[in-house]
Structure formats: C-alpha cells, structure tokens
C-alpha cells in the first residue's frame, strides 16, 4: 500500500538474525532499529566494524529479509513487494565491483538501464555522463578507468532510474583526496535534487561534510540518532585549546589542574596540548605564563571545537 505522503525510507523496529551455520551460533546482527530519511536529506549510518550497518543497508535494498520489523521505500513494503519498492532505489554497495569491467562506460549504462527498466536510457545516460563529468570516458572500458572514475560510473548507474533513495556503502573507500572531494560534491548535488541518501562510512570527515543527520549503530542497536549540528553542539566542551611543542612538566600540570586545565592527546602533527575551561579569561593567561616559564614553544591557541570523529569516539567509548 502506498501512503499519500510516504517517507522515502522508513525503517520500523527492524531486526535481523542470521541463522546458525557450520557450527556457528545464530548471529543477531541488527536489533530493533528504527529511523526514517526525508527527501533531500543525507543520513550517515556510522558504527564500528560488524556493528550492523551493511546488514541494515542490505535490508533496505531488499538483498536481505529482516527477521522482524518493516522497511518501506516511498510507502512500499520491501519484503512483500520488493520489485516495486526497489524501483525507487539506487545503490552503490560495492563501488567499482558492481560494474562490468569488460564493458565501456556507455555499455554499462545501457545494460543496467535495461535491467532497471529505465525508459529512454540514452537520454538519461547522456544527462548523467554530463552531470558527473564522464564525457571523455564513455567509450573506455570500465577496467581501464581510475578508481575515482569507476566510482563515478557506479553512481551514474545508481542514478539511472532517477531514484528517490540512494544507498552509499563505503563510497569513498580507496579514493584519493581529489576524487573523494569530487565525489562529495556529486553527493551534495544529488541530495539537493531531492533524493534521500543513506551513507555508511568509516571516514568521519566525509560523514561530517555530507550528512544532515547521524545515526550511530553499535552491536546491532541504534545508539544515537540526531542532527549533525545538535550532536556537535551537545558534545562541545566550552573552552580553549592550547597546542604546544614539547611535554608539559608534571609539576606545572599539577598546578594548573586546580584551574580545571586538562592535558589533551597529541594531535596528528604530534603536538601536545592543554584544555582550558571557558569563563575565566585570567586562567588562560596564567596557563600561558606557566608555559612561557617552561620555555615551551606555543603553536596555537583556539576556541575548542569538536568534530564528528571526536563525538563518534566518545559515544562508542561509552557504549557497554
């Protein structure tokens, strides 16, 4: 049954238990997961390896049947009417592996267009080739293309049927910086066109750049589901971050601890640091004076910001 105003993706209390196999116990991969995705929204589905992300994505795509619960795509139940439900869906699940490498880009588009029942495949292909900047590669075999280009071809194929839902499972895996950036721009454009997008990735900067909402799944359960802005705000620690070269001596640390100053982990450049709470500007000067007295090189002082990676780490760490 199609609802008058149906959500592009509605996942209701979905669970998946894999049956026992070859001496292994049954595996409860997903437990009572619920969420929905609105048109034009990008939902990042994050979680550690084996958390249940790919199982959830595959259930949405109809590749796996849930043990319990219900998934509808634009109001159509995936379990009971898979063909009709997935007609509104595009997916890049295994990236470049989903393509026929011996066929050219154009031939892949024509082939998968027919498979998806796309009318006027040629016109639609031309449009996507243009949009994804694949014009100079259409007559090349997919196997000859770089990974970034192959990924773009995979997206073009996923978009052939003008899907209302796009599933992207680890779409930037193995892409270089430029290809990754181009890919992100493509995804943003697709979202602007109104498609609901579900993205799984281990690259937090990609998730932060693309997503409107974030769902963190761990042990098969949904641990968090919130907008990106609210998540970042909720985990923001008001204060200042001081980065220095060298090690802060223990006596100084002990002295500053009375001011609520805490040491920070070394960043990617190997700089150590201190966190100074907000609200007492004079404490910041006291810390700086202490560092100067120890002749430690000050690299930067900035207002403390939290990124999605930090939020993710905190949430996953707190989980049982």
């Amino acid at each position, binding site marked *: 049954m199609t609802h008058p105003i149906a959500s592009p993706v509605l996942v209701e209390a979905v669970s998946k238990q894999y049956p026992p196999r070859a001496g292994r116990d049954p595996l409860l991969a997903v437990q009572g997961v619920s969420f929905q995705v609105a048109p034009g929204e990008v939902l990042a589905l994050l979680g550690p390896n084996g958390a249940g992300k790919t199982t959830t994505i595959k259930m949405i795509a109809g590749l796996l049947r849930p043990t319990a619960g219900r998934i509808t795509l634009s109001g159509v139940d995936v379990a009971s009417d898979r063909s009709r439900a997935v007609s509104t869906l595009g997916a890049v699940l*295994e990236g470049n592996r989903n393509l026929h490498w011996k066929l050219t880009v154009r031939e892949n588009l024509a082939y998968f267009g027919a498979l998806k*029942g796309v009318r006027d495949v040629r016109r639609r292909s031309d449009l996507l080739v243009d949009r994804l900047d694949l014009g100079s590669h259409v007559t090349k075999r997919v196997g000859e293309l770089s990974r970034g280009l192959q990924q773009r071809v995979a997206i073009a194929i996923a978009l052939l049927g003008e899907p209302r839902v796009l599933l992207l499972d680890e779409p930037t895996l193995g892409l270089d910086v430029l290809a990754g950036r181009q890919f992100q721009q493509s995804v943003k454009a697709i979202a602007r066109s109104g498609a609901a997008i579900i993205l799984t990735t281990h690259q937090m900067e990609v998730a932060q750049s693309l997503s409107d909402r974030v769902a963190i799944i761990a042990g098969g359960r949904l641990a968090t589901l919130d907008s990106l802005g609210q998540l970042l705000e909720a985990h923001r620690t008001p204060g200042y971050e001081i980065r220095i070269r060298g090690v802060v001596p223990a006596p100084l640390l002990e002295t500053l601890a009375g001011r609520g100053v805490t040491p920070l982990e070394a960043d990617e450049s190997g700089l150590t640091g201190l966190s100074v709470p907000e609200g007492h500007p004079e404490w910041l000067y006291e810390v700086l004076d202490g560092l100067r007295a120890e002749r430690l090189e000050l690299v930067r002082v900035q207002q403390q910001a939290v990124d999605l990676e930090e939020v993710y780490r905190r949430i996953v760490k707190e989980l049982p």
Partner: protein
Amino acid sequence: MSNLATLFWAELRREWILVFRYPLELVSRLIWNLGFALMIYYGFNAIGSGGGQALPGFQDGQLGRLLGMLVTYIAMNGLNNAVELINQETQTGTFEQAALSPPPLWVILVMRDLASYVEMILRFALVLGIATLLTGVRFHLDVPALFVILTLMYLGLEGIGLILGGGALLYKRVGTLTQFAAMLVFGLSILPLEGLPTWMKGFVDVFPFTQALVLLRRSAVSGESLAAMATQGTLPALALTSCIYLAIGLVLFARMERVARERGTLNQY
C-alpha cells in the same frame, strides 16, 4: 512483456559485445568446439573400424556422432550456465547489482541464458558447417526443426540449471553436482538407451535431452518434419516435459532465492 524483450535484448547485446571484444577467445572457443566434434567423430569411427561395433547411442552412424556432439554440448551449457553465471558474478560483484534490480533474479538469469543460447546456436551452426566440410558427412538439415527441438530441450534443461543455480545461491559450491549432471548428459548421449535398466529407462523417457536427441535423429536421418512429429505426439511430449522441468526449476529457484535473501547468502562466494 516489453520489459522482458528489453531485458533479453540487453543481455544479447552484452553477450555479443563480449564475444567480439575478445577475438582470440572467440577463435579459441571455435577451435575447441571443432576439435571436440572431430575428436568424437574420428574417435568413434576408429572404434567402429577397429573390429568393434559402433556404440548403440551412435547407431545412426556418422551423422549421429555429429548431432550427438552438438546436442551434448548445448545440453551441458544449459545445465551449467546458471551456476557459472552466479559463481562468476558473485566474485566480480555484479551479481549484487542484478539482485537489487526490480526484476526477480530468475527472470534475469533466464534472459541471460537465452542470450547465451542464441550465441551458442550461431557458433554451433558455424562449427557444424566446418565439421561437415572436413568430414565429408552430408545430411538433410531441417533448420526450423533443429531450432525448435534444440530450443525446447534447452528450456527443459534450463529448469535443471535453475535448480542447480538455486543450490549455488544457498550452498555456493555445487560443482560436483553440476559435473554429475553434465556427465549424465554425456553418458546418455553415448549409451545404448535400449539396454538401460527399466528404472533408468523410465527416467530417460521423460528427460528432455534424450527426447530431443531422438527427434533430432529422426529429423536429420529420416527427414521427418515438425508437423509429423507434432501429429505423432513426440514433439508435444518434448514440449510438455520441458515445460514441466522449467516450471519446477523456476518454482524451486524462486524459493531458494527467497531463502538466500533470508540467510544472507545471496552475494557470498
């Protein structure tokens, strides 16, 4: 219906592109097929001239050998195609893209097999032509009869292929089973059907491969027409048997596809 035609055309086009994109592979296949045909032909001729009798399965002589080769090879492909496609595409990753497309998997597989069948028939017409030139065998060739009989047989064996393909979705390694089926077909093409035990005779009487083999010999040796076969009931019998095999294959494959989607084995390899 138009969707099926579009899908079939897309599969045929893909098959065609791949055949001609790799010319060395095409030539190798032709040489292999021709070599197989000539090996069967001269091999059994040698058995005959060596004082032994020609094997009863080839009692129609030289023509029987060539036809036996043709039908056997096509039958083996009909049995293997679905399993090969599933195994190959789960490894390359394209199977998942097919599995999340709107048409049911069995539709896609049957269209692929039919496209592969068309390519195979054309290749065999060429091989048969060259083989007859080289061996000097001449025979009456009723092309429509040959096509109808082979197609009906292929559809029947496609049913068995789908069951094996469904097995591949669930259990992955079904190589021994497909080899057994292929050997069964090969065995039936050379064994004297008349000398089989009763229980086995009952099986071969309702096996599309053996039914088709008998009809092809009648068409090629005696010049029996399709109309005559239809009147005698032999052609409808083949059609009915094939339809039953295909229907059983489709039902079981659809069931196994559903179970594979439940167990999560669809795209594993």
